[in-house]
C-alpha cells in the first residue's frame, strides 16, 4: 500500500462515525483505498456546503487539501 493510500485509509478509519463507507476498511488495500476516496469525496462535498468562514469550513478545506507535506511555520509550539 502506498503512503497516500495509507493516509486515505487512516482518514476512513477516523471518520467512521460520519461515513458508513468506513466499514470497508477491512476488505484489503484496493477496497479500502476505494472506500477512502469515496469518503474523501464525501468530505469534499460537505466542505463545499459549509460556510467557508466558519471553523468547520476552514478545517474541512484543510483536510480535503491535506497533502502531508512540510508546513513552513513548523510544529514547534514554544
Amino acid at each position, binding site marked *: 500500500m502506498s503512503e497516500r493510500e495509507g493516509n486515505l485509509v487512516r482518514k476512513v478509519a477516523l471518520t467512521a462515525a460520519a461515513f458508513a463507507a468506513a466499514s470497508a476498511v477491512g476488505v484489503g488495500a484496493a477496497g479500502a483505498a476505494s472506500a477512502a476516496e469515496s469518503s474523501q469525496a464525501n*468530505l469534499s462535498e460537505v466542505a463545499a456546503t459549509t460556510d467557508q468562514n466558519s471553523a468547520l469550513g476552514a478545517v474541512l478545506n484543510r483536510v480535503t487539501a491535506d497533502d502531508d507535506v512540510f508546513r513552513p511555520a513548523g510544529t514547534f*509550539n514554544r
Partner: protein
Amino acid sequence: MIELPIVRVKERAAEWPTQNVTDQALEDPYWRPLPFVEFALKFHGRCNLACDYCYMYEMADQSWKNKPVAMSRKTIDQVAFRLGEHLRAHADEIAGASVRMHGGEALLAGADQFAYAARAFRNAAPSDVPLRLVTTTNGVLLSDENLLNVLREHRIGVTVSLDGDREGQNRHRKYANGRGSYDLVMRGIEVLNRPDYRDLFDLVLCTIDLENDPLTTYEALLATGAPAVDFLLPLGNWSSPPPGWTAGDGGTAYADWLIPIFERWYSTVPLPAGVRLFENIMTLCLGGHAYTEGLGLNPFQLIVVESDGTIELGDALKSAYEGAPYTGLNVFRNTFDDARLLPGVVARQRKVAGLSPICVSCSIRDICGAGEYSTRYRSGSGFLNPSVYCADLAKLICHIRDRALTDVERLRAERAAAG
C-alpha cells in the same frame, strides 16, 4: 581549540527511552530515521522578563547558567554550516525547513545579529529547500522599528507570547522587579500590526493559567489582531504535576477551561482567528494531519541548538529533570545526522511503537498522540507514559470530535436529502 562545557547529567540510564528503543527501531524494516526539518536556536540565552513559570529558567534544568549570554557569530556560522550540510544531504526527503530564533528573549540579540544570522542561514540552505525563518518573543522589544525593519527585510515571522488581558499577563509575565509587562507588550503588538510589519505577525501564544477567566483571556488574545492564537498547557509531568491539575482527583480542570473557548470560537462566523489547538484536533478527527507537537502521531523532526552550540533535544524537556535535553553533541564537532539515532529522537519518530501500552490501546491515540512529550515524564519510568494531561486531553478531544462529526454528518444528510 574549542572549549566545550562540562555538563553533569544525573544517571537515568534505566529510564525510557533507552538504547533499546533505537535498537528495536533499527530492526524494524518499516522504520527509517528521518532528517530534522525544524531547528530551534537559543539565539539569546537570557531574558528581559522574569516569568515565574518559565521552563528555561525556573524549572528542573538549570543548564542555562553555564551557557553564553548570546549565540556568537562564530556559533551562528557553524550552525549555518551544519544546517546547509544537513539539508543538502537530505534534500530528497525534505519539502522545506524552518529555523526558529528563540531564547531566553531572542530579540535581545539585536537587529544586527538577526540580519547576520538570517543571511548566514539563507546562504547556507540549498536553493531547492525552502527555508522559513521565525522567532518567538515576549513582545517587549517589538516597538523597536529598527528591529522590525530587519525582521521584515529578512522575512522573519513573529510569534508573540501573551497570557491574555492585563491581569492575566501581569500575573506571571513580569520584570525581575515585579512590574508587569502588559503595557510594553501591547505597545509592541500595536507597532507589529502597522501595515509595514503586519505580514510578519504569525501567532500569539498563551500559556493557560486556570486563575484567568477563559473567555476574557480568549477575547484579549483576539484583540491583538493576530491571525492565529494558540493555547499551551503548562509544562508539568507525573512527578511534578502542572498548577491546578485535578486529574488525580478525577477532575479535568484544563479541559473545562478550554471547552468554553472552543464553543465560542467554533460558533463565531466569520472566524475571527485560527486557534491552532482546536484546528489541529478537528483536523485529526476528520482524518487530516496535525501541524503542531503535542497532538497526533506525526514524527517529531526538531532539534535544538543552545547558545554555545550544543545540540539538544526539544527544550520543553527542561521541565522534566536536570539534563533531560542533553545529548553530548555540539555543532562544532558533530553533524545533525549524529543526533538522528539518539533514543530521545528515535522515540518521537516511532508513532504507535513509541507509546505506552495504555496509549496504544486507547481509542483516541491517533488524535491525542499521548500529548506533548515532556508531559509524559514520570521519575523511574521516563517518558513511556500517557500525558499527565491524559484526562483533560480525552475530554477536550471527545468534545471537539463529537461536535465536529455531528455537524459533518448533519451537513451530509442535508445534502443527501436535497438530492
